[in-house]
């Protein structure tokens, strides 16, 4: 249970208890987590999400897998090699460009270079680049919020539930 709910009269624990405090607002956050997968290649998004989870220390996010990315061919071998993406032969140039941008986004957006954005845009296009960066933002915020609250979102809330 989140520390935020321990002293209150919450009827639900975990993420459901957090969402119950502000259902529409927390629900809106979850809607974006789901929506981003429709606008950029799922494997690229999942690699970025997992790399971010590793750097932020969001264990739940690191353990979860996007069903859409797995459907699209993401392998556990590649996930296991994620920390060595700059040199591992498992990663292609597009994945490296996206992971490079992901790391810099997390460290300091003000130090991102034109070349880092160009490297992504030239490979996946303008709209997908915009969506990819929006996804970085969305993934990062959910992970930060969950870390602050000390509670893991449900797969539904994280946009990681299997599609029905």
């Amino acid at each position, binding site marked *: 249970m989140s520390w935020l709910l321990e002293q209150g009269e919450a009827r639900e624990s975990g993420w459901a208890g957090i969402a119950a405090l502000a259902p529409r*607002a927390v629900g*809106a956050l979850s809607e974006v987590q789901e929506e981003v997968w429709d606008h950029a290649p799922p494997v690229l998004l999942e690699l970025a999400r997992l790399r971010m989870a590793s750097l932020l220390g969001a264990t739940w996010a690191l353990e979860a897998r996007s069903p859409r990315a797995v459907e699209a061919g993401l392998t556990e071998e590649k996930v296991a090699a994620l920390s060595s993406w700059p040199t591992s032969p498992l990663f292609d140039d597009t994945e490296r460009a996206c992971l490079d941008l992901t790391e810099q986004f997390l460290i300091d957006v003000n130090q*991102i270079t034109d070349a880092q*954005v160009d490297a992504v*845009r030239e490979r996946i296009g303008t709209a997908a680049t915009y969506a990819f*960066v929006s996804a970085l933002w969305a993934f990062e915020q959910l992970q930060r919020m969950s870390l602050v609250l000390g509670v893991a979102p449900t797969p539904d809330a994280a946009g990681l539930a299997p599609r029905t």
Partner: protein
Amino acid sequence: MPALRLPLDASRRTAVGSVDVSGLTPELDRKKGRIMKEAYRLGQIDPVTGELVRMRNARLQDCHVCQNFRDPAAQQAGASEAVLALVDDYEAADLPERQKVALRLVDAYLTRPDDIGDELRADLLRHFTPAEVVELLVRLASTTGNRVLRTLGLDDDALPGRDQLAPGLRVP
């Protein structure tokens, strides 16, 4: 200030001054925008505290759009330029403890979310209801959307009349 990094018309601007991206991913943008609408609709955080939180994030991200924007409700409630200028050194400022706790949450969220500490947790529970803490967090999540603007050079070009953020204040 980065130049526009997507092949868009830089002269087409939104009401707040960022480059208009409508047409790229409208449904995603609609849903992104809903986060902010729903967070502000909660309305449990007083306008001045909310504006200080927004401005602290704006300063840390060096977002020009966010630093240039003013919430009229917060201005009416007392968020003057002099008050907003206190966010850079808020610990030393003459601000209510509730507002300082909210600003500490901003810093913890952006710099060490995995270790916000018992003291801050206790302070948050002392000064805010659980629902108010969630509102603060969703507002933060929403306003950090300026990271997308900064990354892609969609931010406003100008920051008239205000000092640039000291490098030490940048989010690591």
